[in-house]
């Protein structure tokens, strides 16, 4: 199967909550609706980590809920593991969900008892339950805390237990909704490494990762889609998305004797002096060539110590997209 997850023109809107007064005084006036998804197309390849990137309220969680059969789409079609999400009994055995809500366990029960409960719900065969739980606890490095109450777990441990739960029935597809949101930097890094090395690398899972953390997306995703106000604005590899909207290349120079105006026709993006050396970022837009820039700088008496290409940043690409969105909104 080339694609593990596919969405075709998915649309979803939610009714705004009405007050009791509104319901009584205007019973036949339909409630105002908020559009969460507006024709989303999505194609996630089998075995890849696909990022769903977007600001809060972009529709990421709604999309994850549709793909995990928790919410039905108003229009359009979603296919997970080759099955339409409307046939949930066929889809659910193939998916595991990890969401950001660290409360999603029974606090008075131990980690093991929690997993035991969910294992029965996830149709793990009775004789396999204990060995499967042992295996998963070891994999997420929680064996030492298996008998401890969930309420005593740290945020990192809670999130690792959530990953173990999603893996109980060994689904080929994992849907992760901001899994590192409530974690400290060290726990986030550890979970990201686990996702990349263990879940994708060793177990070969297909992972849809909804996040607004650009670093996370950059570190983990093979491809990503940027979702803004319920529409997919950009899809591609991290490199492609980074370069999106950039019609210029940039180079970083380390030079001595830098002065304003010596770059000639080239636009200087930034320039700062550190330990007697200037670090300048210069844009080579249009037909601008590196040779011409270096010639101009050296002709002005500068000594060039280093020169390298500036790789566009995902954060900048995202910011560009957001600026464009607000400009559209203003227009």
């Amino acid at each position, binding site marked *: 199967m080339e694609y593990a997850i596919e969405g075709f023109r998915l649309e*979803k809107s*939610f*009714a705004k909550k009405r007050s009791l007064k509104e319901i009584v005084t205007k019973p036949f006036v339909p409630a105002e609706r908020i559009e969460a998804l507006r024709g989303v197309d999505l194609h996630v390849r089998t075995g890849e980590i696909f990022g769903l990137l977007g600001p809060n309220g972009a529709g990421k969680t*709604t999309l994850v*809920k549709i793909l*995990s*059969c*928790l*919410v*039905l789409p*108003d229009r359009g079609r979603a296919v997970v593991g080759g099955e339409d999400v409307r046939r949930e*009994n066929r889809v*659910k*055995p193939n*998916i*595991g*969900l990890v*969401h950001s*809500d660290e*409360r*999603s*366990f*029974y*606090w*008075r*029960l131990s980690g093991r*008892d929690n997993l*035991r*409960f*969910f294992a*029965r*719900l*996830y*149709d793990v065969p*009775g004789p396999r339950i204990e060995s499967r739980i042992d295996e998963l606890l070891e994999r997420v490095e929680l064996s030492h805390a298996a008998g401890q109450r969930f309420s005593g777990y740290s945020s990192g441990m809670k999130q690792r237990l959530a990953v173990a*739960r999603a893996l109980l*029935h060994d689904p080929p597809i994992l849907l992760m909704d901001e899994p590192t949101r409530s974690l400290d930097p060290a726990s986030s890094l550890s979970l990201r490494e686990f996702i990349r090395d263990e879940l994708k690398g060793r177990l070969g899972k297909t992972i849809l990762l909804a996040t607004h953390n650009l670093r996370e997306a950059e570190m983990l995703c093979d491809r990503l889609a940027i979702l803004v106000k319920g529409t997919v604005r950009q899809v591609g590899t991290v490199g492609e998305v980074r370069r999106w909207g950039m019609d210029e290349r940039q180079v970083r120079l380390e030079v001595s004797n830098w002065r304003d105006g010596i770059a000639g026709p080239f636009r200087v993006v930034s320039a700062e002096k550190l330990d007697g050396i200037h670090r300048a970022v210069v844009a080579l837009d249009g037909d601008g060539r590196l040779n011409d820039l270096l010639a101009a700088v050296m002709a002005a008496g500068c000594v060039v110590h280093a020169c390298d290409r500036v790789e566009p940043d995902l954060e900048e690409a995202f910011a560009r997209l957001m600026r464009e969105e607000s400009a559209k909104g203003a227009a």
Partner: protein
Amino acid sequence: MKRFFTKIWAFLYRDLLTDLSYRFAFVLQLFGMVFAVAVFYFASRMIDPKTAGLDGIEPFPWILVGIAFQLYFATALYSFSEKVRSEQVLGTLEAMLVSPTPTSMVIFSSAAWDFTWGALRLVVYLLAAVFLFGVKLHVTSPLALMLGIVLTLLSSAGIGLLSASFILYFKRGDPVNFILTMGTTFFGNVIFPAKVLPASVRGVSAWLPMTWSLKVVRGSLLQGADLSALQGEILRLAVLTAVLVPLGLFASRIAIQKAKREGSLVQY
């Protein structure tokens, strides 16, 4: 079927472990039940045993059985919706609903412990009545008693599912539960016989499963009535159950579908 019982057991074991983790509260609840029986005993001594509608049964066991079953009914009425609500608050509902277990089974099984606890409370009430207050039980037909209990459980579950569906559909439930609980308490022969009510409203009681449940249980438990003597009441209860259970299941299916369309099932 094995899958069904495995799931029910998972929920029962989970809730048993949770309740046992609050040991003091657990013991207090048991003590509270015995204390409640004592209150009913002394309160019932004010009632004239010749009151119309008691059918020759002593007021204390008559009221005890009525209140015990009414509490059971209230459990059925509230537990489905309250469990869904509490799982929403805990954040565990999504994790359950994304599992291959059907949504209706998740909702149904969530209340399994409450039903079991309700049954245990019934037993404690009866044991306390027998051993502490000398109530004599006359069970000549265990089958009639069993039928009465099973049909009560099913009809209550049917009404409970209807109530939970109403809450899921309209996201407002308290008035419905309140009306059903009060209506059953008032018209269902729970604390006083419907015969003492004005004739104009007395007919309402015939439409309530509680009326027939209590007739069957009081008859088989306290009067020594056999199956043939209670067959009319059992039949009426069975008919009401046969209507309420499919209706409850159908309503819950519609409500779950709507909640899924609106996304309200997983929102708190």
